[in-house]
């Protein structure tokens, strides 16, 4: 009971923007409240005169160019109405900060959608992670990470079909850190109503769009009562606007334990959570089905969205045609779904799943011997 009471008390001030969304939005763009029916994070791109969508393509480092080539080949064979616009995001320093070249920003802003291969981020001093920079530049607030078991690649877990949505702009990865005194560091986890509400709302909408009936918030509000508490309360509040979706919550510890014990009860749910938990759990779910080489990822922003392979750039196998393009391919399929090109998405997805299930042309990481282009070739054959 008192949880509800707290929730309503806390939420009271924000009701205003819900009622007068337009008026308030003018002065407080961050507090728009998304009260309207408008779908957030939707795709608003238009076809060009030649009937094709222009999509920015960031091939990435290491194995990036090879796996990007596979995607291009498969898309050409599948006759997808997409034209690729290659984009270079090698960072530049702008006023002392890591930044992405203007040309790249313009391209993505124009096309509203991009596909991205792996980028190398060195650990340690120097540049801010380029991935982080991209997220900030385009305000990519939600990271969507589905994980589905792949027939043909056996792991200890069968029938996995999880979907995780991670808040992508703040939380533990706010980047606000400082030395208090020598040997004492504070790192700030930032949770705001605006960002939390946005990602939660997206989670509800996404659940509706993919036909999942339940949304679950994963939190640690027992310990972080205010920050995770806010996130959880907002979930509860928003759930009232989505009567068709069942809402509940689970403690992070329990989620970790339960997914590892048996992931199948999570198949009917969309999990939504703050940044760090999402980061860890989405990779853990990837581990259930065979690793990052097999899982797609989408970063949804207000206007632009970037779909990417989240695995590393694997410089050790660069140029040897050993890389597995599956993650990038699956990410591109998510992109097609985001763009409303569902038929093409389904067709390519089926061809890819078939190829993996047949198991004749698997890359080395899946225990096969096929080269990158041979695997892509097999998918193209299955398209027909």
């Amino acid at each position, binding site marked *: 009971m008192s949880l509800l009471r707290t929730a309503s008390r806390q939420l009271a001030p924000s009701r205003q923007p819900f009622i007068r969304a337009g008026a308030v939005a003018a002065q407080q763009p961050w507090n728009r409240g998304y009260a309207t029916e408008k779908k957030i994070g939707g795709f608003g791109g238009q076809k060009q005169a030649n009937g094709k969508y222009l999509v920015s393509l960031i091939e990435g480092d290491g194995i990036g160019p090879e796996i990007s080539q596979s995607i291009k080949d498969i898309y050409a064979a599948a006759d997808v109405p997409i034209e690729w616009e290659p984009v270079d995001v090698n960072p530049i320093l702008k006023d002392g900060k890591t930044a992405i070249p203007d040309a790249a920003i313009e391209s993505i802003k124009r096309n509203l959608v991009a596909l991205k291969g792996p980028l190398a981020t060195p650990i340690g001093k120097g540049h801010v992670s380029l991935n982080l920079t991209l997220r900030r530049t385009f305000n990519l607030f939600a990271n969507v990470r589905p994980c589905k078991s792949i027939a043909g690649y056996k792991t200890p877990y069968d029938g996995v079909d999880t979907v995780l949505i991670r808040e992508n702009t703040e939380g533990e990865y706010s980047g606000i850190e400082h030395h208090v005194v020598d040997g004492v560091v504070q790192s700030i986890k930032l*949770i705001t109503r605006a960002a939390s509400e946005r990602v939660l709302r997206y989670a509800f909408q996404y659940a509706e769009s993919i036909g999942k009936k339940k949304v679950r918030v994963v939190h640690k509000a027992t310990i972080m009562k205010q920050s995770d508490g806010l996130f959880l309360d907002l979930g509860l509040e928003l759930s009232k606007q989505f009567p068709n979706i069942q809402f509940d919550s689970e403690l992070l*510890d329990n989620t970790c334990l339960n997914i590892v014990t048996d992931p199948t009860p999570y198949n009917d749910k969309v999990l939504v959570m703050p940044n760090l938990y999402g980061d860890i759990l989405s990779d853990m779910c990837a581990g259930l089905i065979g690793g990052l080489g097999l899982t797609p990822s989408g970063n949804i922003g207000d206007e632009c969205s970037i779909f990417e392979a989240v695995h590393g750039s694997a410089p050790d196998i660069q140029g040897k045609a050993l890389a597995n393009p599956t993650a990038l391919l699956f990410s591109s399929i998510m992109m097609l779904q985001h763009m409303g090109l569902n038929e093409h998405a389904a067709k390519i997805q089926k061809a890819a799943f078939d190829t993996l299930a047949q198991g004749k042309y698997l890359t080395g990481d899946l225990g096969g011997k096929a080269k990158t282009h041979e695997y892509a070739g097999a998918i193209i054959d299955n398209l027909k």
Partner: protein
Amino acid sequence: MISRRALQTALRSGVRRPQSAAAVPSVALRTYATFPTTVGEDLLMPTKYGGKYVVTLIPGDGIGIETADAVRTVFKADNVPVEFEQIDVSGLEEGKKNAEMLFKECIASLKRNKVGLKGIVYTPVDRSGHASFNVGLRQELDIYASVVLIKNIPGLQTRHQNVDFCIIRENTEGEYSGLEHQSVPGVVESLKIITRAKSERIARFAFNFAKVNNRKKVTVIHKANIMKLADGLFRSTFQRIAEEYPSLETNDLIVDNASMQAVSKPQQFDVLVMPNLYGGILSNIGAGLVGGPGVVPGCNMGREHAVFEPGCRHVGLDIKGQDRANPTAMLLSGAMMLRHLGLDQHAGRISTAVYKVIKEGKVRTHDMQGTNSTREFTNEVLRKMDESV
């Protein structure tokens, strides 16, 4: 199982001390030998009264009462020279009035007895609710190192085989600092604190633990690519201390990768050391690998105090009072405690009996795909102990 000696040796490491003191393995095992010499060694010892150790018992909420009963029954049957000083602190609403008082009593009792066995006390999600007693207790007693053993139990079938690793988790700072504030309505900051002193202390504990238990590799788990200062400090401190332990292999792993590896190739892990929150995540993932929270024992070690509790810290409110809980985690935690007290024979008898029951597989609780109750399981353990006499 972790030997008492192993833990205590690891423990000593947490204290900065002159190099010469390090090479005294023959110091009576039970002492915390290297605590600053101005403090009498015996002061830090658990005290025996009338031939018995007095140990604080905090059953906690949820399944605590049932599993604590199991421990009591088994200890009694084996004539273990331990007398429990039980404190029924609860984090649930109904017990609230009393809770703060009882919590203080817990602290006082543990400070007196130095050793405790505890279940998990419930923590409300509610923002107006009290802070976690579990965390408070750890911070108050400075029991800084949580040790959780993730190991397959023979006879208990799980998805992964040959899992055998150990999680050493910093227990007193990090994300569980409890420092939070609302800057303006709708903007909340939660502080994660990492200090060099505590990072060094836990790193030393991990290295010594690895050495004494014949482990080969120590891995530091972090997210220093994003939290460059906080986790960066934790990692760099670990790497600095590592130079003092050339015989051990060391490496580092980012926490998301570690979680992924844990569910795909957990066999690669040996000893893992990490800040607070990651420890919570990985110990739960680990428990999932080897059979759930009901079978994973653990302990929290400080310089002066040691509190033993189930390793992945689940309250189990949903099966409270149904006589369904698996007492294994609590029994094994109890056995660990006995080793800590130097009661190795009792510890050996109890843990052997528990493992036998599980291996035989005739009597199992629900979480182990059985149909038996907590009491039936406990009785079977007693029978096995009788047989071995």
